[in-house]
């Protein structure tokens, strides 16, 4: 495999990727990275759990990860050590697709590009807290913070904490403790929220909950991770679609022997295959990019990869022609059977956008002194879908550990306005 050649092809297509550091690693390392999402991120049982699940699935060949790319400058790419040469050609092209997307898509404009270093620094702080306060206590705070990890808003407070840029690469590794102390002071001063209602629940709790400094710091670490991940969540389909679209274009330019081609085709089919009675979002992303290139040319495709997130990508470019060609429909259930519920293309598209782009219910902090009793009131904005009460109550229980008072959730359930409490009780309100 010739990486230089692949990079030349990439640039010829008009892509402008970050430089990439490639690492070839055994499966265990790759699955650990996938489990903690950023290498070096703090230890938590949930990472172990998903690591173990991943490894099991890998060993039983149910699924396989070939690569993992970290959004940083330079990008860090981890490749499975048993990939064959031809698979690695595909994977390298795919990685450059991601590296290009990370650099150019506007959702990643404010990304922490030294996240792989910062994550290790934060992990070090959490390790220190574990030594000082015990694993159990740290875990409880992490467990609680992770229940609301997606409720962050990087624009909710504009002076978000920025770690001081390193003077030379890896400088900060030299004196971790000094940096550690300095950062803590920064957090104490900067963790402020701007007012209610507040959709950045993590920031609100870090500011207002009666927490020791180290607990506030853990909340801020979870929050920063989340802010870093939020563009990934918003762009997973277009990003994967782009990288797969790019790797198939590159592979067409490489001379493959018959056997190589079959191996490539098999793996490629596994990654971007169409699944009957389901949808592989990556496959869908590739189809949309192919359609864009066919109708408007590659230049337009490059513009789309710069400007769109999942929502705009699907809403603007999943057109009638494509929906018809791919045979997409909305289904529903009738008794014990699945039935075709909708075939009209706009409704199919809107249903899909809704499924993919609003996966997390919208919840914000509405009142911090509800009923004049210091109760924290969260409000769920109903969008036609009910919340699952069992899970919501578990979340409230975790939050009470941080708030050290009652935490209620106001929601609409089957058209009735209700307030749920952590003990499982509920009352109807007007």
């Amino acid at each position, binding site marked *: 495999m010739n990486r230089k050649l692949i990079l030349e092809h990439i640039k010829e297509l008009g892509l402008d990727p970050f430089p990439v550091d490639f690492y*070839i690693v055994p499966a265990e390392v790759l699955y650990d990275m996938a489990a903690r999402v950023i290498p070096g991120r703090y230890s938590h049982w949930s990472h172990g759990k998903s690591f173990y699940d991943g490894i099991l699935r890998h060993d039983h060949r149910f699924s396989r990860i070939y690569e993992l790319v970290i959004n940083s400058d330079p990008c860090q790419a981890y490749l499975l050590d048993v990939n064959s040469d031809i698979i690695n050609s595909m994977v390298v092209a795919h990685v450059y697709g991601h590296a290009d997307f990370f650099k150019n898509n506007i959702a990643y404009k404010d990304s922490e590009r030294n996240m792989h270093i910062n994550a290790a620094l934060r992990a070090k702080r959490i390790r220190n807290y574990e030594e000082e306060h015990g694993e159990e206590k740290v875990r409880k705070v992490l467990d609680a913070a992770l229940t609301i990890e997606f409720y962050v808003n990087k624009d909710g407070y504009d002076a978000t904490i920025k770690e001081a840029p390193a003077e030379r690469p890896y400088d900060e590794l030299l004196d971790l403790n000094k940096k550690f102390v300095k950062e803590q002071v920064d957090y104490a001063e900067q963790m402020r929220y701007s007012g209610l209602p507040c959709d950045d629940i993590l920031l609100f709790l870090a500011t207002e909950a009666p927490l020791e400094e180290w607990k506030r710091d853990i909340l801020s670490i979870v929050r920063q991770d989340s802010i870093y991940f939020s563009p990934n969540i918003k762009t997973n389909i277009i990003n994967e679609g782009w990288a797969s679209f790019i790797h198939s274009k590159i592979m067409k330019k490489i001379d493959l022997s018959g056997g190589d081609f079959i191996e490539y085709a098999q793996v490629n089919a596994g990654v971007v295959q169409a699944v009957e009675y389901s949808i592989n979002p990556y496959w869908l992303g590739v189809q949309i990019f192919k359609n864009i290139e066919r109708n408007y040319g590659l230049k337009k495709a490059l513009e789309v990869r710069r400007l769109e997130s999942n929502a705009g990508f699907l809403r603007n470019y999943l057109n009638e022609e494509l929906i018809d060609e791919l045979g997409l429909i909305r289904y529903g259930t009738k008794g014990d059977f699945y039935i075709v519920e909708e075939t009209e293309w706009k409704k199919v598209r809107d249903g899909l956008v809704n499924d993919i782009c609003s996966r997390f219910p919208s919840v914000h902090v509405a009142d911090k002194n509800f009923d004049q009793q210091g109760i924290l009131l969260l409000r769920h904005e109903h969008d036609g879908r009910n919340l699952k009460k069992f899970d919501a109550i578990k979340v409230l229980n975790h939050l009470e550990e941080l708030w050290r008072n009652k935490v209620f959730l106001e929601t609409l359930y089957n058209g009735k306005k209700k307030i749920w409490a952590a003990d499982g009780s509920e009352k109807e309100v007007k």
Partner: protein
Amino acid sequence: MEQYGAWDLFRRGHLDQERHLKILRDIIRKNMTDLVSHGKIITGDNVVIPVTHLKQYKFVYEDPGGAGTIMLDKKMEKGDTIGKKPQKSKGQSSSGDSSESEEGFYEVVVNADQIAEILFQDLELPELKEKQKAIGYKEEVVREGTKKRGSISNLAKKKTIIQNIKRNAAKGDPGFKNIIDDDLRFDTNVLKRVPHDRVAVIFIRDRSGSMDATKKHLSRVMAFWIIKFLESKYKKVTERSYIIFDTKAEEVDQEAFITRSEGGGTRISSGFQLADEIIAAKFPPESYNLYTFLFTDGDNNFNDNLQAREMVEKMAAVNNLAGIVHIRAQGAYSYYSDLRFINSIKELNKPNVIVAELTNQEDVMACMNAFFGRTKK
């Protein structure tokens, strides 16, 4: 292009998985009473425990009940049937693995061995007396001492470092530096005869009519856990013997021990008498760690009480532990309970004669604690 590293030393995934398992074990421990009495465990099957704590809860939508967008390979019209809904299958997976069920619980599959490991960590064997002869020998490779020459794979790092520091300190320049060949120390491995324990357990059960099905079942559960425990401590319980008795005793196989029930009258001494004979014939006390357990509902022919008590004393002399499981289950005979035998045993006041009461399955753990608990005295 690629950077290789010492990735084989990378253990973080496993370390975090260990955290995950630790939490799992804590949860299992908290539910231990339920688990021990779980009927399935004693047949050696895996048991599915619902665990609610191990899911990362979030605010989520209710399951819309099967709706979404899919692709079809053929043209269909609105209202057409696509297919039958699949029956939800329960997650079955290898031990220690978990899967999400409909209720939003995690189901963790555990087997008896895993439970035993957790269960027994707070239990220990009774203090051993001069029983050390009660041991067989087998040959094993063991580490013994260090020497100055050896294979590098046997390098004794700590001792080498100490040697180096000592040498430097002697020169007046303390610190760990300038290793020379003379500092190196190597472990030596020698073939040695090492003692290994020989263990025998004797279970004695009253088979008279008063031992109804419930009481027999409790005996079986209790015997199961005793063996599990001894196996966990001794690696393998080498010998077992089962005795049932009414007025006479006989040695039977495990199956009969669990099920048989007939006859009338009860002479507990007969059970112990046979146990004594078996010990003398098969398990000489000087070469076996012996454990004898009696399962009784307390009823005994009153003119046998004195003799039975003498036999218990005799048992105490040769056994590491003589345990009496007093089964007081509700049953046909529960209106009348003769405690004279049990009380006379309690009055013996010997540290290795222990009476534990078993009323229902929830008491199994308490009984195990009575026999093997660290705080039993």
